[in-house]
């Protein structure tokens, strides 16, 4: 097995990890602050993806598509939070059922509107084809995914560490009640966070539509991966989501070459292992 082969596989793992990070970061932020296991996160990804495909078809602009997908998903997210989730806040199981219901509705309406055939969007010329390095070529679109994930990740890091909003977010993750008592409008923080998490899901959907396809069931398939990432990394932790994405991306990539017999559950075994040995995940906060 040549060094080139391994290098390309590493890149494959990283680019898939990048997609997982886009999806997982929004999921983990929402969970960290609001303690909501948002099973509609995949549906928001799907909705964003379809909106992106339509936008590219109509305008030809990939950038607009990214924007439209994020805005559409954020819109659905805001409605969900403001009119539904807020009514049952704090009841975890009903919240889960609620998000499942939303996922059902979005998924089925998407089927009714866009049909069941898998669809993808046409990547812009600039991102098509392969970029040649010294000894191998690598697809530009996958490099773009990595760059996009890096940018989002860095942005999140800076916001979390250096801004007031970030400080409120971190405070909320650590102790919701106390944050409220400090005079922070928790309702607004929650709404803002849910909006942001949804927007990230929509963005991930558009980005993914350039490489994967949108179709019925694509939401649950990818959501399972995102769940694994979030659990391995530690719920509520953006750093954890980053490390988890890279790890799961790499494991997925190499396991399918080296232990193809186990490819159906290659990513679930490490997850179980992490959970048994370190239940809070790699970066989960100890109490």
């Amino acid at each position: 097995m040549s060094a080139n082969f391994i290098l390309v596989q590493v890149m494959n793992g990283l680019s898939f990890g990048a997609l997982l990070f886009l999806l997982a970061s929004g999921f983990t932020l929402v969970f960290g602050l609001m303690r909501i296991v948002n099973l509609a996160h995949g549906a928001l990804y799907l909705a964003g993806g379809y909106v992106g495909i339509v936008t590219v078809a109509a305008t030809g602009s990939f950038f607009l598509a990214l924007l439209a997908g994020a805005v559409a998903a954020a819109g659905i997210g805001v409605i969900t939070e403001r009119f539904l989730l807020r009514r049952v806040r704090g009841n975890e199981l009903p919240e889960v059922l609620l998000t499942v219901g939303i996922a059902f509705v979005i998924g089925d309406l998407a089927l009714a509107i866009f049909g069941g055939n898998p669809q993808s969007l046409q990547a812009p010329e600039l991102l098509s084809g392969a970029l040649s390095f010294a000894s191998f070529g690598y697809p530009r679109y996958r490099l773009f995914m990595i760059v996009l994930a890096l940018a989002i990740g860095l942005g999140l890091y800076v916001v979390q560490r250096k801004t007031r909003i970030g400080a409120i977010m971190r405070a909320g993750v650590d102790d919701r009640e106390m944050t409220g008592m400090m005079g922070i409008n928790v309702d607004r923080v929650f709404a803002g966070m849910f909006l942001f998490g949804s927007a990230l899901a929509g963005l991930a959907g558009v980005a993914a539509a350039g490489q994967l396809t949108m179709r019925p069931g694509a939401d649950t398939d990818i959501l399972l991966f995102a769940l694994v990432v979030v659990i391995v990394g530690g719920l509520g932790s953006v750093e954890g989501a980053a490390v988890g994405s890279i790890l799961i991306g790499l494991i997925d990539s190499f396991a399918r070459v080296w232990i193809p017999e186990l490819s159906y559950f290659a990513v679930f075994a490490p997850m179980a292992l992490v959970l048994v040995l370190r239940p809070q995940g790699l970066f989960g906060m100890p109490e």
Partner: protein
Amino acid sequence: MSRLTALVLSAAGLGAVYAAPYVLPSFVISLITLVFISGLVAMSINLLAGEAGLVSIGHAGIAAAASYGIAWATLNGMGVGSRVLLALGLALVVSAVFGLTTMYTRGIVYLMISLALGMVAYGLALRLSGLTGGQNGLTGIVRPDFVDLWWQFYFFTAAIFVLALLAIWVMRRSPFGLTLRAVRDSETRAASLGYSVAATKFIATMLSGLLAGIAGVLAVWNSEFISPAAASFARSAMAVVMVILGGTGTLFGPLAGAAVVVGAEHWLSSYVERWPTLLGLAFIAVVIFMPKGLIGQLPRRLRPETDRPQKPAESIEPEATTHTSA
């Protein structure tokens, strides 16, 4: 609800169950049979979720283990008794794996480990095609003679369901049931009172697994067919949905939830093209208007005495973080 009304109602309920095959067409009876079977799976999850605060999204894997056990034993010509023993044994082995890996966890961690194990079970069902028939599944898993006819199987399933209901009722009132709830409400306190929290959870998982296994046996007898779809994430998740829909911790909630979900998937879908949307809207409506579930939200006087929702919601909190080694 007074004891008298409760008795009258349960008698009426049993009477209805008994009379159903005489007045309803066979297809409707087969649907009700399916509701009972799905209700049993949901009940097994409810046993953990309601009493112990442990929500499992992997129980389809346990039920499927029993189904595959029956399938294999039937196709290899084993007798009815050994078939059932093998199937339940398999379900218990899988439950033991669930139990051993989860006995020190709770909340979201329990949920996620069960999800992972469920996915592994699904993967195995696909992968071990020599035994499981892979994606194609296994056909020709005939029911034993004594439940060969549709109405015989209906009565059999109904009887098992009623027995399971009673067993759970008794369990909830037994010292073990109380220990379980003590563990759910405060592991710290239960432990300081001298209970072994891990052992309690393990036993609860085994009991729940046994119930899921029984449901798995009935499921494969119902369809006389098994494929990995029976162990899929969707199946596990829908069973959890049934529990929450009906009301976590209630005695009859799983049955009510199963009736809604099975009704939508198997009956409504014949008449309404966009049935998944309706089902999703139903979930949302229940959460908004009846957050304690269909049964949990019933007015007190209409609710069976034993059926108060049992403060289940804590379960999702990631309290497992307290398990870090000090």
